[in-house]
């Protein structure tokens, strides 16, 4: 007996799934942008492919990243994904042994026990049965955990679970039912034919008093239907992440990155989101301000299904905590900036009015304070003092208030305007003849590094001060100040600069680590990326961050961003200083002037 109509739902679902996925993949790959295609061409036959396969194994099957973050959650995902995967693989091998042909009908492995009713046919029956039962048990334990997580998420260390749409619920329910139904179906067959092992055999015995010969077929049918339903719902539900993540890992390893415009790669990223909801807990808008409808999980979902609202698109601090937390490593902030993009007016110039003067004298560096720094004059005064003490000649590019770096416009999707500013500033910087650009604003710093193609290095002042100290141009006097350091989002997570400021501060006083720092640093709430929230919400985020930062009762909260300084300073709870201020106040002795 090699066929029964009960496999039809399964087969229909499988074919449907294969066709839909093929169409989708073709579309996405077709829509990749030029940079992405170039990257793939370059790296497809290289070590990167091996790395990608390794990553696919670790992430798609074992879910290593989730496991590291939360063991129970990791186990849940691993048992479901890897357990099911092995059940399919081992089932296939089992049927190979049983039927002696690899190319036999594909459903024979899925419905093995139903079709392989004569156990004496092959000698490996006992170990295979045992392994399959074990795998089923492992998978079932994952299902139990998943159900438990739905009911009591906090017990799995998750504060909030995702609010799912109907299609997801259908897919989820059918997925959960697959394994209990398989257990019951196999158990009835085991009771009838004796092909069960420790699990199916035992459950079969427990069902002995039931009319198993009558319920066997309906149970197998139900099992097949559940698989069919799941497969049909999958490409339209969050479970599309299962096949898509594999593609994403490959492309990412080959060097593809999110571009300025929506592309096939964006679609792949959108479909890779499993809506696990880990980003909800990472988002300051949620835990500090109780806004829980705008997080990447919903944003990505809405974008994928084309019902994104402006409110969801705009309501994001772009602090990057979600990117850091995302188990599948989606470029969430990049996609967010994409959807914010505004219509362009070709040929239009917006900032012709600026008549910034070029530098005329010979200088070591260009100093760009940044717009915000003009409202924290102490930073500018301190930088001037530091330059003076270290004997650095500089051109203060925006002393008379120059152009903005362009990042605020870019963040809001005004790309054309942003590029105009980049072009104008680049001309000014290059015309200065200086060998380095130093800025006091992490927003500008990020912009200079990523959006500009400057032919001189760019440094944030914390890094620059560190360099001056290493070069012995600046010596600082130690003090007994108790300090904590706040990593600005743009400087830390977005530019990866964590060590320089800490190195500098450790020379001055005692730096106490805080609970959330470096990659996990909290946003001050003042972020200019989020125009959808008002001052009251910003204050909540700020106060929440201050609670964490001032837990050790420091003398001073040090940061390296004028916006963070201003935002924290408004609270008045703790003294807030920029790293430049604290350095300028602790310069030990005056070095001889070099020029």
């Amino acid at each position, binding site marked *: 007996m090699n066929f029964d109509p009960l496999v039809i739902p399964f087969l229909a679902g499988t074919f449907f799934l294969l066709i839909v996925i093929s169409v989708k993949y073709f579309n996405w790959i077709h829509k990749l942008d030029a940079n992405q295609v170039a990257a793939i061409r370059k790296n497809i036959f290289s070590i990167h492919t091996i790395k990608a396969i390794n990553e696919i194994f670790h992430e798609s099957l074992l879910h290593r990243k989730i496991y590291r973050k939360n063991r129970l959650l990791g186990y849940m995902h691993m048992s479901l994904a890897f357990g099911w995967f092995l059940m399919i693989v081992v089932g296939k091998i089992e049927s190979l042994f049983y039927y002696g042909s690899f190319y036999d009908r594909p459903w024979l492995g899925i419905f093995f026990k139903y079709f392989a009713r004569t156990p004496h046919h092959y000698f490996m029956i006992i170990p295979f049965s045992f392994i399959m039962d074990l795998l089923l048990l492992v998978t079932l334990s994952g299902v139990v955990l998943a159900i438990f997580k739905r009911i009591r998420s906090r017990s799995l260390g998750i504060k909030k679970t995702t609010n799912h749409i109907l299609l997801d619920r259908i897919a989820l329910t059918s997925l959960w039912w697959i394994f209990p139904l398989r257990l019951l179906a196999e158990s009835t067959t085991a009771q009838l034919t004796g092909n069960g092992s420790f699990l199916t055999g035992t459950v079969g015995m427990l069902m002995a008093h039931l009319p198993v010969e009558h319920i066997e077929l309906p149970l197998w049918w139900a099992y097949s239907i559940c698989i069919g339903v799941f497969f049909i719902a999958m490409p339209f539900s969050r479970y599309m992440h299962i096949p898509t993540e594999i593609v994403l890992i490959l492309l990412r390893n080959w060097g593809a990155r999110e571009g300025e415009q929506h592309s096939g790669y964006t679609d792949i990223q959108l479909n890779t989101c499993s809506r696990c909801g880990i980003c909800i807990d990472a988002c300051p808008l949620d835990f500090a301000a109780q806004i829980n409808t705008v997080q990447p999980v919903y944003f990505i979902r809405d974008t994928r299904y084309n019902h994104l609202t402006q409110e969801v698109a705009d309501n994001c601090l772009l602090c990057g905590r979600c990117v850091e937390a995302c188990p599948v490593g989606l470029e969430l902030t990049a996609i967010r900036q994409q959807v914010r993009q*505004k*219509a362009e007016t070709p040929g*239009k110039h*917006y*900032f012709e*009015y*600026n*008549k910034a003067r070029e530098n005329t004298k010979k200088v070591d560096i260009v100093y760009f304070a940044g*717009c*915000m720094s*003009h*409202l924290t004059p102490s930073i500018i005064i301190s930088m001037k003092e530091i330059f003076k003490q270290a004997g650095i000649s500089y051109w203060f590019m925006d002393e008379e*208030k*120059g*152009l*903005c770096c*362009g990042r*605020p*416009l870019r963040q*809001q999707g*005004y790309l054309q*305007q942003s590029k105009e*500013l980049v072009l104008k500033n680049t001309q000014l910087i290059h015309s200065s003849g200086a060998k380095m650009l130093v800025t006091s604003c992490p927003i500008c710093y990020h912009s200079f590094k990523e959006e500009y193609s400057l032919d001189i290095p760019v440094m944030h002042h914390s890094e620059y001060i560190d360099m001056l100290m290493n070069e012995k141009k600046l010596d600082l006097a130690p003090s007994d100040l108790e300090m904590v350091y706040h990593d600005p989002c743009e400087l830390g997570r977005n530019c990866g600069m964590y060590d320089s400021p800490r190195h500098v501060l450790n020379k001055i006083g005692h730096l106490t680590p805080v609970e959330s720092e470096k990659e996990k640093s909290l946003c001050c709430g003042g972020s*200019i990326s989020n*125009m*959808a*929230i*008002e*001052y*009251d919400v910003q204050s909540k985020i700020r106060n929440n961050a201050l609670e964490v930062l001032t837990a050790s009762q420091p003398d001073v909260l040090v940061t390296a961003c004028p*916006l963070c300084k*201003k935002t924290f300073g408004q609270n008045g709870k703790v003294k807030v200083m920029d790293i430049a201020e604290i350095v300028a106040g602790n310069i030990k002795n005056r070095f001889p002037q070099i020029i």
Partner: protein
Amino acid sequence: MKDWGYKISIPRIIDLDRSDTSLYKQLVSKVPSAMKCIMCGACSATCTASNHTTFSFRHCHILFKRGQYSRLSDELDKCMLCGKCNLVCTQGVNTRAVISTMRLILSDMNNRNIAL
């Protein structure tokens, strides 16, 4: 229509009986803090664009509020969204959002060819 070499002047008056102030309602539904503005001008004082051009957040805001949309789009385009105005505002007005929302509302209007 005849052309005698001159045109009938359009009144400079803010005619609140005729101006369409519904756009402002649209604005405050998106950015409620706009209503907190007390027109102190701190925003315009710190603004780089204001120092170089006729752009003024306060002025654009009051014109929009009064339904005076002509040429407002061009004014709004001068803003670099740098956010200094946001920082100096004592009333907690989300100035950048006000600017960006005004821009979007006006371009939406232009696209629909509604006379402004």
